[in-house]
């Protein structure tokens, strides 16, 4: 008997320990920064780069003194269902940092940029419109000068005003080599605060497209809390308890969730009359689709941005709601492109590449592997939101679609024949063709897709096998150019077609191609056109279209990459607690229903302001 008591007691002790170990209710954190002598901000880039090398070695004591004071309002421990929005699908790992400058981990704390830190502009991809946000306006006063006006009355969540000094400070942080927008300083000359609410940017050689993109992606941080930090802390510090200007405040987190609580003093409530409906957002990381699917059906999650196979059936039955009521159910978020390694035979032959494009059974990928959750891509690869840049005439002349007969004919015309009678063609020089199409193991939908690619190519007489190495091996093969052909989708929704072309035709070709042109397609003509597009002002739509048309003509003639389908902006909503979700219908909002990193500032945040609680 007593043994039992002991075991129950010890269990209780463990449980209490557990409760104690978990993050305690966050007290209001007052950060007092013991300012050290900071490097002068205006140092030439080269010097800063040298600094990187030095600072790494030195272990610096943390210079931030944190004093905790009990919060005015006792932190809530059990969330009220009708005040809380449960989301999922953004994070793929446990939260690890809240630093808006560490870009690759932001998915896991996707609210860092968008909910806590904000950008100067928002971008609405459905309307193709920049929405002034922290900025009131921005204009090119001449070809090399951009004048930015800030809104007055914006405050950081610690009460300090947000001013031009913060904007200049943030942009100048980009002089650190470890900051993602560092290359901008190659063509940006200076950022100067003309007054508390005016910033002037001077350029040497403005890349307008990229600039617009940066305007809604660079999160502004408060100078008074960041200026004391070392370069290492800025570029790779965890930045716990972030202080921003946004609609939500960091509340707590654990391995499988981020909790954000509404900022009741948010500037946009006063200035723009916007108020996000949920008091609290619990952003959940589900380990598997299975669990996410269950939660959204039961209404335990209000907005799921997971890829959930089988959702089409459930949407038809009315268990969940999606943006479109019928196929493809989802908006298109990015293009799945088949990169061909053009340095290898026979992928160096445009005729072979073109034949392959006709051989791939994209309808099967769309209808079977994805069960209609995605849409076949336009041959140019441009997303539907950028459709106006597609030259329909070029597509009509040079486009491709699934047509095995045509594939066989192109192969035959180019001299590819089945010499040894094994059912697969040999190259014109008689050498055998045996290729592999890859994607990382565990990416289940893509694994199905490459299986279809391989089997349909085989049916057209091209010997391609599908193979799924582990992610690390796949990534190494991708960036060092040792693969044959592989899928990639690293260009998402954007304000400009340049984003996609920057992925497809990134140049110059170097030893490690880390973020584009994996197939090492070398064509100076296209590279020049892409550069030209980057330097075209966004206002010059006709000019952009003309350049895009030329790129498309070359791309579809040469076929160095094969755009296949659009991955969806996966989003399924439950109407049990929150309603008025975005759909294609006219009487509902038309903002993006997404919590993914980078999508808050493309409409995700606005979606929160139009939600309505169920009575």
């Amino acid at each position, binding site marked *: 008997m007593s043994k039992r008591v002991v075991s129950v007691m010890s269990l209780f002790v463990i449980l209490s320990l557990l409760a104690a170990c978990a993050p305690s209710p966050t007290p209001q954190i007052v950060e007092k920064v013991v300012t050290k002598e900071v490097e002068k901000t205006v140092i030439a880039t080269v010097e800063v780069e040298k600094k990187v090398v030095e600072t790494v070695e030195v272990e610096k004591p943390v210079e931030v003194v944190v004093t905790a004071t009990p919060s005015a309002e006792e932190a809530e421990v059990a969330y009220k269902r009708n005040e809380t929005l449960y989301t999922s699908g953004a994070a793929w790992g446990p939260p690890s940092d809240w630093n808006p400058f560490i870009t690759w981990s932001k998915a896991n704390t996707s609210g860092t940029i968008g909910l806590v830190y904000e950008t100067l502009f928002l971008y609405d991809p459905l309307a193709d419109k920049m929405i002034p946000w922290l900025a009131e306006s921005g204009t090119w006063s001449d070809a090399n000068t951009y004048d930015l006006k800030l809104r007055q009355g914006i405050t950081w969540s610690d009460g300090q005003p947000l001013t031009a000094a913060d904007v200049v400070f943030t942009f100048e942080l980009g002089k650190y080599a470890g900051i993602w927008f560092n290359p901008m300083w190659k063509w940006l000359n200076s950022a100067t605060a003309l007054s508390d609410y005016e910033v002037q940017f001077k350029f040497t050689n403005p890349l307008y497209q990229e600039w617009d993109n940066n305007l809604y992606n660079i999160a502004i941080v408060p100078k008074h809390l960041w200026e004391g930090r070392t370069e290492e802390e800025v570029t790779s510090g965890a930045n716990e308890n972030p202080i921003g200007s946004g609609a939500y405040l960091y509340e707590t987190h654990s391995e499988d969730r981020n909790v954000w609580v509404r900022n009741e003093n948010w500037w946009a409530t006063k200035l723009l009359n916007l108020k996000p409906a949920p008091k609290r957002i619990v952003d959940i990381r589900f380990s*598997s*689709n*299975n669990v996410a*699917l*269950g939660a959204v*059906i039961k209404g335990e999650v209000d907005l799921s941005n997971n890829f*959930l*196979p*089988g959702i089409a059936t459930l949407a038809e039955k009315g268990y969940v709601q999606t943006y479109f009521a019928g196929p493809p159910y989802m908006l298109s978020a990015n293009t799945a492109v088949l990169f061909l390694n053009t340095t290898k035979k026979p992928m160096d032959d445009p005729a072979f590449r073109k034949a392959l494009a006709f051989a791939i059974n994209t309808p*099967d990928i769309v209808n*079977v*592997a994805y*069960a209609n959750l995605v849409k076949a891509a336009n041959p140019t690869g441009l997303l539907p939101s950028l459709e106006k840049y597609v030259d329909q005439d070029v597509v009509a002349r040079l486009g491709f679609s699934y047509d095995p007969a045509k594939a066989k004919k192109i192969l035959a015309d180019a001299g590819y024949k089945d010499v040894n009678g094994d059912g697969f063609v040999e190259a014109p020089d008689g050498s055998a063709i045996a290729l592999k199409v890859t994607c990382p*193991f*565990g990416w*289940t939908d893509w694994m*199905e897709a490459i*299986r279809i690619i391989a089997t349909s190519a085989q049916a057209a007489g091209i010997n391609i096998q599908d*193979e*799924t*190495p*582990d992610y690390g*091996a796949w990534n190494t093969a991708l960036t060092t150019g040792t693969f044959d052909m592989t899928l990639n989708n690293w260009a998402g929704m954007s304000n400009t077609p340049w984003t996609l072309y920057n992925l497809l035709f990134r140049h110059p070709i170097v030893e490690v191609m880390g973020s584009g042109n994996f197939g090492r397609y070398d064509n100076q003509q296209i590279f020049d056109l892409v550069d030209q597009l980057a330097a075209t002002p966004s206002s010059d739509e006709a000019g952009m279209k003309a350049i895009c048309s030329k790129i498309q003509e070359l791309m579809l003639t040469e076929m160095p990459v094969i755009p296949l389908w659009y991955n969806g902006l996966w989003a399924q909503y439950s109407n049990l607690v929150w309603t008025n979700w975005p759909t294609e219908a006219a009487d509902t909002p038309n903002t993006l229903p997404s919590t993914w990193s980078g999508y808050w500032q493309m409409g995700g945040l606005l979606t929160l302001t139009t939600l309505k609680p169920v009575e």
Partner: protein
Amino acid sequence: MDLQVRSETLYFAWRNTKLRVGLSVVLFFVALTFIGPLLTDYAPYDYVGPAAQPPSPEYWFGTTIFGQDVFTQFVMGLKATFQVGIIGGGLGTLLGILIGFTAGYRGGLVDEILNIFTNIVLVIPTLAILLIIAAYLEVRGILTESVFIGCTAWPWAARAIRAQTFSLRTREFVDLARLSGMNVWRIIMTEIAPNMMSYLLLVFILQFGGAVLIAATLDFIGLGPTNAVSLGLMMNNAVLWGALLLGMWWWFIPPGLAIMAIVGALYVTNVGLDEVFSPKLREM
């Protein structure tokens, strides 16, 4: 073992219910492995029918979310299971025999060193090692998987065999052989091994079962073969594609059930054999 003992053993084997039941189940699955592929016209990953169909006369075990035939995957997976069991379990037993025999027969320093080595490998969690090995290999097949499982599964077999050899070595008939000038290997082969045959069979059966379970674990967490069909992979796929919530029980029940039945039947066979080999236990 003379003829009479052998026929007596067979007699008791036939009378032992555990052995009969266990062996029948195992043989049933072995037969299914060979006959199964003849009963299906499909390839395991081909899209052959409507998606997510429950079992029907046409698709005996139903179809996956893509309309692949679950029965086809199942019988192909059975084959992989037996492959892993035989190769992995066989290799584990073989290594166990080699190390156990050597240690037990030689004794002394060799024994000491091998014993320490065995104990070290025993303590290190096998799965952790396998995970790391698996992660080293970019592309994996059933064969490599089996070999690695075999290479990490031997320690307890070695330990058990060492103990057996140890006790046999000191028996009179071995001493007699040694005095008569037989060389070591002949003694092992003619005197010790035959006396341990039954014991080795039991060890092999347990190793077989262990290898199958470990392989299922590896496959399930996505570190199994990257280019094959297996029962563990079926479960992995079923879970990844939401079979639980979509109620597609026919996708995840058969593979686990088959593993459970095969391994369970082997264990029961093992006990049955044990009773047959050691007369003392027969009464129960």
